[in-house]
């Protein structure tokens, strides 16, 4: 039996490995970057090396707004991971590839061309992400509701966008899918803006800000209360954290000044939210600016190359829940899910509300699922139960579903072979992948 290469080709990260295995061999950026001091472009995992100084590095990605726009760049990155990381021979392998929902026909053609003409893969199967997430969750709990009812609502907060997708009998119900144009990338950029306006100009530091976001951001369960705490001076400000910038000599990466500092706020979250929500928020706005600036970074010594974060820690993920409050006129995640479910047959509503699966890197912020539940409950009829499951590993969920599918006995029959592609062309082959 030959290998099946499973490639979850995300706009942010490529997850690549061999079908049947539990985890992918490679989880690497789907990008090239060029450090300031270098002429050489670094590919994928080379960007993750601890020795590389990515300060003000230039980034190039094959994806724009979640869709492939630069097939040549993608092809270079694939060839790099196939030969250096997976060490496979495409002409002896089949490929299970993920593509975004509603991929454009012109992009599908370029993808097929790369797969069959550049790499000579033996056979190809293309899947969307929600059906693979569903498959994986259903297989993990064969007697659970997702598996028995054969349906789920997959909320995938990816790099470029977020989709709420109902899945029924292993197929994504495309007509009911709703998309929010916000993902991890927008959140990093928003954090970059906030910090750059408020303390140090870090507009060129995407890699650094990704790290800050992953280490410090969390989802607030009580925004007015937390804003109030965030303006307190000194030790009473439970959110204040200091992040140290790389100096390029002793440190090429940034780091937290005090590793315990980010956890201080958790004392608030151990209590029930109601108990601590007593503080009032309507202070007179104009008189407070002095105090506010003190708690907000203006006293930071720039020569020390560090900056402080307070309310940014939760205002950034807040964007997913209330984009309109932050200047983007879209419904938030809870309403996105409600609209997707409402577009399905009413028989499916109760079981979909009870089978919400969260996946994607941006669901990793602490308290994400809890907040989603708080936002959803008032929008969902009382007679329906609400159950939100977070994937064990939200970054790998899609890949693991793909790995399962690739090792199923039916897989070969589901693929399009190179000979079929050559005979029928891209468009007709594509019809096989969807019902």
């Amino acid at each position, binding site marked *: 039996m030959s290998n099946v290469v499973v490639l979850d080709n995300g706009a942010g990260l490529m997850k690549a490995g061999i079908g049947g295995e539990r985890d992918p061999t490679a989880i690497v950026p789907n990008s090239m970057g060029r450090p300031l001091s270098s002429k050489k472009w670094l590919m994928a995992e080379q960007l993750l090396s601890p020795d590389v100084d990515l300060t003000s590095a230039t980034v190039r990605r094959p994806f724009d707004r979640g869709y492939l726009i630069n097939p040549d760049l993608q092809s270079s990155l694939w060839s790099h991971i196939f030969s250096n990381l997976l060490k496979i021979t495409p002409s002896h392998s089949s490929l299970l590839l993920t593509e975004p929902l509603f991929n454009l026909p012109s992009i599908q053609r370029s993808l097929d061309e790369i797969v069959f003409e550049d*790499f000579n893969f033996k056979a190809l199967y293309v899947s969307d992400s929600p059906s693979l997430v569903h498959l994986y969750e259903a297989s993990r709990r064969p007697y659970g509701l997702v598996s028995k009812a054969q349906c789920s609502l997959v909320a995938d907060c990816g790099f470029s966008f977020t989709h709420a997708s109902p899945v029924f009998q292993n197929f994504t119900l495309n007509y009911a899918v709703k998309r929010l*144009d916000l993902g991890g990338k927008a959140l990093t950029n928003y954090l970059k803006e906030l910090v750059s306006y408020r303390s140090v100009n870090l507009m060129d530091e995407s890699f650094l800000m990704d790290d800050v976001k992953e280490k410090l951001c969390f989802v607030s369960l009580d925004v007015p209360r937390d804003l109030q705490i965030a303006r307190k001076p000194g030790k009473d400000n439970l959110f204040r954290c200091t992040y140290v910038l790389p100096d390029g000599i002793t440190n090429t990466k940034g780091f937290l000044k005090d590793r315990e500092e980010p956890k201080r706020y958790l004392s608030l979250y151990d209590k029930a939210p109601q108990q601590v929500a007593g503080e009032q928020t309507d202070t007179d706005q104009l008189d407070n*600016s002095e105090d506010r600036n003190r708690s907000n970074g203006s006293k930071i010594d720039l020569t020390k190359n560090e900056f402080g974060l307070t309310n940014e820690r939760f205002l950034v993920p807040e964007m997913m829940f209330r984009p309109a409050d932050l200047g983007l006129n879209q419904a938030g995640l809870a309403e996105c899910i409600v609209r997707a479910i409402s577009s399905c047959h009413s028989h499916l509503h109760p079981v979909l509300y009870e089978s919400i699966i969260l996946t994607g890197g941006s669901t990793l912020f602490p308290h994400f699922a809890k907040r989603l539940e708080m936002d959803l409950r008032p929008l969902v009829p009382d007679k329906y139960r609400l159950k939100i499951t977070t994937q064990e590993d939200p970054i790998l969920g899609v890949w693991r579903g793909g790995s399962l599918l690739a090792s199923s006995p039916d897989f070969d029959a589901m693929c399009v072979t190179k000979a079929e592609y050559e005979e029928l062309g891209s468009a007709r082959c594509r019809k096989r992948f969807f019902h």
Partner: protein
Amino acid sequence: MDEEMSNSARRMSLRTRKIAPKMAAALASSDNRTQAMLARLDALESDNAVVEPQLLDDDDEASLDDEDQVFHKKYPKGTKRKTRQAKALENKRAPKSFLELLNEANLESLPPHVPTYLRAAVGPPSSTSRRHFCTVCGFSSTYTCVQCGMHFCSIKCKAIHNETRCLKFVA
């Protein structure tokens, strides 16, 4: 007035290439607030704060050639790919943006029952109430800039807003 128009048209030209015609029309509108919002979405999607490197850069070939050699050692059948990449390097124009590809796909012409990228957009929220955060310091804000629509909370933050970011995305 005319001169101002042509200036802004020139400024726009770089950006327009990257934006579908419909959005470009909105961008060219005289409404600063609409412009500011569209530019904001664009900024949140951008990879580099600086200009796209491939437009300026002549050093790319050296590094990509290394990669090519690795490729050809491992995959001798990749000749077709080489010509594609060589072509891509020769004409250094940036690849089409997604919005350009979307526009070319002409999804509006599909019958209404076909699910598409455009029809999957979640759309505006049903509630029109908004919490406003000061764009300078992040705390609740009660004031709106008459020029650009961004929010600020105090005289101090208004001053910073005017100095550093009012209409920054538009200019």
